[in-house]
């Protein structure tokens, strides 16, 4: 008996609805032709949990990726270019983003948690901001002086802007399957080489992760008695090893691309259509971005 929190197929409800071999009509964005008769319905996986979010069905997920990219970019630019956000602005923007996340049926808390990953990076930079202050003094005692005020505001600006941008981008990433994302970027005339790099990173990050995990297991199995310093050195070797392996894999991937007639241009096959909904969504977000900037 599956618990009430799970649907009849045993998947946790709310996050992920999945079509199975015996379902009558597909609720899912995958165009399924027919399924293998002898394969269990869940023979494939959806990779890491985060990538699975892109398969949710929601109005936001249905939007054209170009609309989403343009909107996200508009918000981020408005946030970054504008002055340090005031409380009302910050609150309004957070409310807007959370509303969009809810509309997209995303697990908001999970996305929020992930967005805090940017805090250590932004925080390190923000740490030095109070020391600079209006007068640009790097004096350590500057923390408490009148000059530090501007610095605290600068610190707030750095942190809040970084976090808002990360949250916006995360919503974009969670609502757009990577193939669509890359095609959207290509149609918006982002440099092809960057898109190619991104798509290879996406493709092989998991493979590299699996290799690192297996090497760490090997280290744990045989090197459990090492001192901290020696273990750290070992990880240095691991990093070097990963570099060599990745380099050689790159050579092999290139060979298989050549074997299939690669001439230097990666072809794409995504079909995108810009509908009225996309126009409205983009316009709304652009207006919001402008409001943020000008208010």
């Amino acid at each position, binding site marked *: 008996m599956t618990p009430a929190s799970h649907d009849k197929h045993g998947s946790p409800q709310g996050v992920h609805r999945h079509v199975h071999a015996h379902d009558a009509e597909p609720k899912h964005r995958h165009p399924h032709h027919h399924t293998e008769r002898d394969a269990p319905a869940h023979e494939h996986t959806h990779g890491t949990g985060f990538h699975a979010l892109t398969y949710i069905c929601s109005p936001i997920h249905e939007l054209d990726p170009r609309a989403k990219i343009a909107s996200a970019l508009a918000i981020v630019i408005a946030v970054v270019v504008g002055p340090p956000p005031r409380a009302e602005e910050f609150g309004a923007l957070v409310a807007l983003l959370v509303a969009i996340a809810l509309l997209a049926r995303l697990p908001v808390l999970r996305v929020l948690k992930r967005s805090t990953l940017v805090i250590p990076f932004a925080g390190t930079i923000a740490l030095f901001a109070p020391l600079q202050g209006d007068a640009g003094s790097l004096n350590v005692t500057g923390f408490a002086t009148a000059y530090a005020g501007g610095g605290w505001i600068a610190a707030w600006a750095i942190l809040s802007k970084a976090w808002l941008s990360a949250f916006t981008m995360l919503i974009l990433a969670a609502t757009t399957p990577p193939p669509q994302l890359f095609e959207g970027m290509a149609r918006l005339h982002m440099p092809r080489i960057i898109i190619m790099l991104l*798509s290879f990173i996406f493709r092989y990050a998991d493979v590299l992760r699996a290799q690192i995990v297996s090497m760490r297991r090997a280290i744990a199995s045989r090197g459990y008695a090492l001192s901290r310093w020696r273990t750290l050195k070992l990880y240095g070797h691991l990093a070097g090893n990963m570099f060599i392996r990745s380099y050689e894999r790159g050579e092999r991937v290139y060979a298989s691309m050549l074997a299939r007639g690669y001439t230097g241009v990666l072809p794409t096959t995504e079909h995108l259509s810009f509908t009225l909904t996309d126009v409205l969504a983009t316009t709304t977000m652009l207006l919001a971005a402008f409001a943020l900037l000008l208010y």
Partner: protein
Amino acid sequence: MDNAAHDPAIALQGIEYAYPDGTRALVGINLSIAPGERVALLGPNGAGKSTLILHINGIVRASVGTAAIQGTQLTDATVRDIRSRVGLVFQDPDDQLFMTTVYDDVAFGAQNMGLDRDEVDRRVHEALHAVGLADTASRPGQHLSFGQKKRIALATVLAMSPEVLVLDEPTSNLDPRAKRKMVSLLESLDSTLVVATHDMELAWTLCERAVVIDGGRVVADGPAKKIMTDEDLLDTHGLELPPSVRASRDLR
């Protein structure tokens, strides 16, 4: 089976190749494969099977010797045409599934041939149906099981409709069920087949001709029935009898 009007599907003459560090990988390889033949390329690890395979579609060029596919000499000018006629399937499917979805991967080769979108679409679906994975088209390749990835890797090449198929260890690391699927899939193909493998049972089931390579040289070339039952020959070169041959001998 070679007659004047029928060019061999693959003709390698005097192929020699040395690695950048000087190690000689291939020494005087002569190999002629007729259209429609199914040849098993056998040999111990390090014999040069994989290196030899890379010569067939020009990814590696021999320092000495020539290669010709269906009568066309392999040169810089003809290499692209040859790659559309010779389908090479590598051992590690992760190296061959590099696009974001299975559809993109299978379409890649066909698109590079300059075919229009509808034709590419038709070929992708044909290829996916041929390997029995038509429902995986919109999924990212990395989320499939290993056996499925191996079959998709084959599909990526089938979409180019090659007349010659060259496979490097098609059954390595497959569980028995996946292995059975792969073998029956390969049996259903009618192109010229070259299979480099350690899997003696696969070679025995699939191929009528066997070529044994050791130390970069061809040491045996003949009917599979003769070569794969010669225990001494196989033993000398790091191989063994196919299980079904050994079983039938044990029964006697």
